């Protein structure tokens, strides 16, 4: 499994988590945050925006055009209550799966 593939499935989870922790952010901000936290994970920028729009479509995040401090128009995303619930579900699933995989790896 390549690095990118691993990230593909978990990108929405990461986005939701980042938005939950850091509050409203624009797309580039989300990339920067993920990269800042983890040296290992690099967000494939091409897949970020479709993922964001899909999340938006599912009403888990909300988008709004705002103006940044240096007067640029930026599209800022923030978590919705439904998104927060989804995040909790995803997180639980992720931990249980990774725990299960870890167990197999250790005991096999």
């Amino acid at each position, binding site marked *: 499994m390549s690095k990118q593939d691993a990230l593909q499935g978990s990108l929405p989870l990461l986005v939701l988590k980042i938005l939950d922790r850091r509050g409203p952010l*624009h*797309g*580039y901000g989300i*990339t*920067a945050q993920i990269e800042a936290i983890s040296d290992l994970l690099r967000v*494939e*920028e*091409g897949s970020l*925006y*479709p993922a964001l*729009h*899909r999340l*938006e*479509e599912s*009403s888990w995040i909300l988008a709004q055009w705002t103006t940044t401090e240096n007067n*640029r*128009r*930026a*599209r800022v995303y923030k978590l919705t209550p439904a998104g927060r619930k989804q995040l909790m579900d995803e997180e639980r699933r992720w931990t249980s799966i990774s725990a299960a995989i870890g167990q197999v790896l250790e005991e096999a």
Partner: protein
Amino acid sequence: MSWISRVANAFRPGRTAAGLDDELQFHIDQRADDLVRGGMPRRDAELLARRQLGNRLALRDSSYDVKSAARLDSFLRDFRFGLRMLAKHRTASLAAIVSLTLAIGASTAAFTLIDALIFRPLPLPAPSQLIDLARVVPAFLSPDNQPSESDSFSYPQYELLRRAASDRADLFAMRLSGGLQPALFDDAGAVSENLRAESISGRGFQILGVKPALGRLIQPTDDSAAAHPVAVLSDAFWRRRFGASPSAIERWVTVRRKQFRIVGIAAGPFAGVQPGYLTDLWLPLSAAEDPLNLAAPDLGGIAVWGRLHPGESPAKLREPLQAVTTNFLRDRFRINPPLSLHGDQLRQVSDAPLRIRDMSTGRDSLFRRQFRRPLAILALICALLLLVACSNVANLAIARASARAAEMALRMSLGAARSRLIQQMLIESVQLAAAACALGLLFAALVAPSIVVHLGPTELPAWLDVGPGSRTLLFAIALSLLTALLFGVVPALRASSVSPGEALKAGGTQNSGRIGSLRWMLAAQVGFSVAVLFLSGLLLLSFRKLIAVDLGFARDNVVLFDLAPRASLQSWRIDSGATLLEHLRHLPAVQAASLSQQRPMGGNLVWIATPIVRFPGRANETIRPVEAQVSAGFFSAMRIRWIAGRDFLPEETGCGRCNRTSASPSVIVNQAFIDKFMPGRNPIGQGFDKVGDDPDPVPQRIVGVVANARYNNLREPEGPTIYAPLADATTATLNIRTASRPASLVPWLRREIEAADPTLTVRGSILLASQIDNTMISERLLALLAGFFSVVALLLAGVGIYGVVNYATVRRTREIGIRIALGASRAAVVRLIVSGAAMPVVAGIALGMAAGLGLARYLAAQLFGVKPADFWSLAAPLACILIAAVAAVLQPALRAASSDPLIALRYE
């Protein structure tokens, strides 16, 4: 994002794309800024940022699919594709559209009629608040011995009711009219026209909520005998008679021997409170009615209408009004007891329940009563016809879908989801239905008015607002969508269930014998067609029976003239009638002439007297025969057979009041009367008591007996009938039997009549034969439509059977070729093809007959002399469908049998 914005995005892809561009550009700029901050030259930084984001166009597309409703986009694409496919299979599409148009058009026309006549609320504000009052008439007072409702009150009683109701409802009075009366406009010379004129109390229009289109309406100040008499026209009449010219205002019209000045037009579409009738003219009640009549406490004829105050219920209103009615009638019975009622009957009448009736859809007109059942039958047949058309179109679609199996398979193997294919097929169905809906609406708009013309006799035309309206439109659209689902779902599921590999391999035409669902659809189609044929057949056979009824008199060469005194309110004077008859009988063209109080075969248009008859010594037995008042010579003019006794003497005719002075007036009875009440006795000279209009029993003496003859209509059995000498009446009908065809003699006879007796005027004339036809209007209309529907159903069944058999034959071309090459006889090939179609056709016929027999009970009351299980009722539709099936199977079967095995084997 809401679905609205997604839909919006699908229609303006430009804007969304621009938004996405902005967002991505922002990302690139931010990344570049960061890189520059990290020490990279700006140029390189921008390049790198751009490269990192990847292919911007692809990115935009994948986001665009999410952002705009991808579904809607595919929908639009499917829509365009569907149109292309329909245009490609032009014949099949056309056949589908035609059959759907007929079915949807017929259903829509039927709905328009039913809605306009029965269900549509009156075009007035808050129609649900409108009510009228009715008293329950006890069974013993009703002619058919069933409790009925009467909405006839006296004016003084109305005044009491109005006052008692004033807290909860505004009541007003009307005199509604079921017939037409002559009116003379001041621009018409001396030619009067027959109009429906109704009187309304001063606040009536205000309470109903009618607005003037021009001028003003009747106001409370108009409603007094002292006020200047005014009149208001209905919008529809104003348009027809005056071409909507404002000059109609201030004209004068003479009605009921009184002149009224036209002051305004009531705005359309309000046309009166009895759907089916157009009220031409409204007059103020007190000005139009005889003040003596209005003051009479026991004289009925006033309808009491009203509008409930907001929040009030009929139940709360009923209580005080019931008390008023009961007290009023008890008082009246104490002062002026009706002699025909005794003891407990009086109490039953005075204490009869009062009903507050919902009048949101108006009062029942004759047409509504008469056509409620026929129109329901029409709706039933239309629904079946719709199912025929649906299964027919489904068949066509299945056959076409099989031909398109290769296309479906290709699309599926290229990754199209099954739901996409179903969507594609359903969209094509909806497109067909939409075309049929538009054409069906057009069809209905053309057909409905011409059916309205056939609802009433020419003398009393029906009037219905069947113009295009939102209700009709909504109905047609809903029906079309339902239709699209009905005929679209099966083919869509079938077509989309192809397995791509197999279908592609088989090349589409040879995919193995899966015509199972096609067979079932064919059975369904034949079944629905047979049900339509069966029900229509019943109506046609019943009509045939009706026109063949033995009348008991000779219908041809008789012309009827309605006579009325030319001047004033004077009663019909029979001595002048006698002179008239004498004069006419001497004309060479006239074989016989007589008078009757009403038109013979008046049907629903005349009121039939059913007096109470009691025989001496049988006091408990009350009998209600039909009574007809006729002059001497009636039976010879009508050619009714004599059985015993004598005709009336000239001096017995007429003068009902002088009759009473003689010991016992003469009466002639029919055979049914004798059979029922005095079998085996010599009736001549026998007597009985009659209680009619006059409350005192009058002893009668039988002087003659005649054979049974229909007097009022064809349907009712020839019951006991008594013929009394024509008494004083304000009007009468002259029956003239001519030596030759009377139609051309009518104008001349009319002049002769008016010349012979200048005190008379002829109000109308009709041939007896036409008058008889008028009593069968609903039956004739239904038979006509049933005939039309049978032809359509038969045609559709034929097309369906042909389509399926043809399709199956074409698919088996190779097989047949092999069989012929191996020595199968032509007959064997024909048998092969026919046996393939026989099963579904026979199953369909069985199902259709069963459904028809089940549904026939809804028709039972409309049928005359025909039972669903009769031989012809069953045989006629069977014969029709079998002939159609054979005709449809023959051509493909013969073609297959004569096919050249070499060509067939090479066929791909």
